[in-house]
């Protein structure tokens, strides 16, 4: 690869209509967003307000939503359009894999979930036969703390949220793509597992040369994991750069607000004390003011 960036997003916008059947005023869910994932694999995190357009960006990169304006280039080739260098479907799926936001929607209720993993391995030519496919699925599942044996024959309803998220991650890992677009992939996973998955991501970036677009609300993992961070608010990127710069030294008000709102163990939100005071009642409210002394952790 001769210095072609993995992904170039330039001036991307997408508008929707708000309310109304046919009318309704249009608004921009994504407004003029640009960023680049360089040739060297890395993790690009998008953090931001709920409803600020993160998923929409992800879906545009995944060709699931048409951009209203702007362009996306994957490995220097246009994502949409009909040009000769358009990436064909098969290739696209080998290059890009998604992890969708809602794990409870990610699999059909009528197919055992493991089928998706096996099929991914077979279809995208990771495995040549069923046995290899199962092996590949098992490897991927083990890396997220599950195993093929554990999920075999079970349907989506029979899994917990965290399990489904991990299965989604495992599925995306199987074809070893160039880019994984992960939309809140570990939001329902407990902290210790989450750390191991995040470390896994990091490891994959290093060892397999996979780039990540990592959409999350968890600033600490974003900080921990990513090479670049973009902070979004109402459709726009308000701040972006290396995480140490941004999170250690936020320039924008919104970023600072975000930092302040992190529920951290140790500093209690002052607003809570206000509420407690207002409603405290001697006979029930236990030592509320003195609650939660600083931990030693």
């Amino acid at each position, binding site marked *: 690869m001769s210095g072609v960036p993995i992904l170039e997003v330039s001036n991307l916008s997408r508008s929707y209509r708000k309310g109304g059947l046919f009318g309704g005023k249009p608004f921009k869910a994504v407004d003029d967003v640009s960023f680049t994932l360089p040739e060297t694999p890395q993790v690009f995190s998008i953090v931001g307000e709920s409803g600020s357009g993160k998923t929409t960006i992800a879906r545009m990169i*995944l060709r*699931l939503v048409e951009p209203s304006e702007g362009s996306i280039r994957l490995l220097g080739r246009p994502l949409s359009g009909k040009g000769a260098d358009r990436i064909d479907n*098969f290739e696209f*799926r080998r290059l*890009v*894999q*998604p992890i*969708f936001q*809602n794990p409870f*929607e*990610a*699999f*059909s*209720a*009528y*197919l055992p979930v493991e*089928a*998706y993993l096996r*099929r*991914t391995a*077979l*279809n*995208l030519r990771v495995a040549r036969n069923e046995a290899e496919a199962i092996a590949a699925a098992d490897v991927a599942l083990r890396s997220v703390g599950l195993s093929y044996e554990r999920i075999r*024959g*079970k*349907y989506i*309803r*029979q899994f917990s949220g965290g399990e489904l998220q991990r299965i*989604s991650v495992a*599925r*995306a890992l199987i*074809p070893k793509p160039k880019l994984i677009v992960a939309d809140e992939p570990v939001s329902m996973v407990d902290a210790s597992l989450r750390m191991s998955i995040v470390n896994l991501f990091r490891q994959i970036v290093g060892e397999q040369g996979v780039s990540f677009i990592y959409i999350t609300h968890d600033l600490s993992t974003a900080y921990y994991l990513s090479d670049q961070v973009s902070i979004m608010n109402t459709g726009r990127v308000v701040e972006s750069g290396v995480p140490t710069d941004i999170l250690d030294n936020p320039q924008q008000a919104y970023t600072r607000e975000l930092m302040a709102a992190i529920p951290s163990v140790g500093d209690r939100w002052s607003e809570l004390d206000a509420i407690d005071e207002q409603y405290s009642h001697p006979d029930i409210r236990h030592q509320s003011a003195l609650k939660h002394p600083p931990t030693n952790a």
Partner: protein
Amino acid sequence: MRNFFLHAPFRLYLGVALVALCVILGAILPWFAPGDPLVWYTAPRNQNPGAAHWLGTTSLGQDVFWLLTYALRNSLILGLIVAGLSTIIGVFLGLAAGYAGGWLDRVLSFFMDALLCIPTLPILILMAALFSGQLALPIVGLLLVVFNWPYPARQVRAVALTMREREFINVAWFSGESSVRILVRHIFPYIAGWSAANFINTVLVGISTESALAVIGLSSAQQATLGTMIYWAINYQALLGGKYVWIGSPVIAIVLLFIGLFLVSSGLSMRSSARRMSV
């Protein structure tokens, strides 16, 4: 198999039993018929059910029981094949149109709409002329398929239109699944129950249209089918004349077949739902 009988709900048993009864009557017993029950005057006319003729005889001296087995065989084959083909074609093309969208959708929709618009009767009469009224059952079946697939197709297309918005379809696509597989393995299960209902319905349509065609002169009334059996019984006023076994037996056969199929399909869907909801 063992498992099947352990978990099957009662209606599934009953349905399987009814369908099995029809299949035994229609697929196995005809081999044991003492003679060709279609030929007239092989037996005394207008006999009541008795030892010699279990279901009596027709006004044309045919044994009702053996006639019924022949009729059931042909109708079963015709009905199941017509229903099977038109449901498969209809559901698949409907899914394809709804899922793929674009020009494929437009072309398929055009054909569906056009076929739906054209009333079948005049076309069928033309066919009658072209084939001199001697359409073999397979061709009748083919015609029925041509005119019946657009119904499920149109309806399934509507379902596919909303189904393709669901996330797991995207996951399937990114899992490298081909369009056909997405239709068949991922979308179809959601309408499998409905398709089964449509299938059962088309079995009925197939059987009854065939008899209507026999009357128009498209297919031959001399073939034994449940429809022609009813046709002849009506022609000889079996109902008003109190020859209830003659006219009743094909009707009951149709009803039992239908109920059997219905019970099987709803029993199966109950079972599959139980399996997916918990182990």
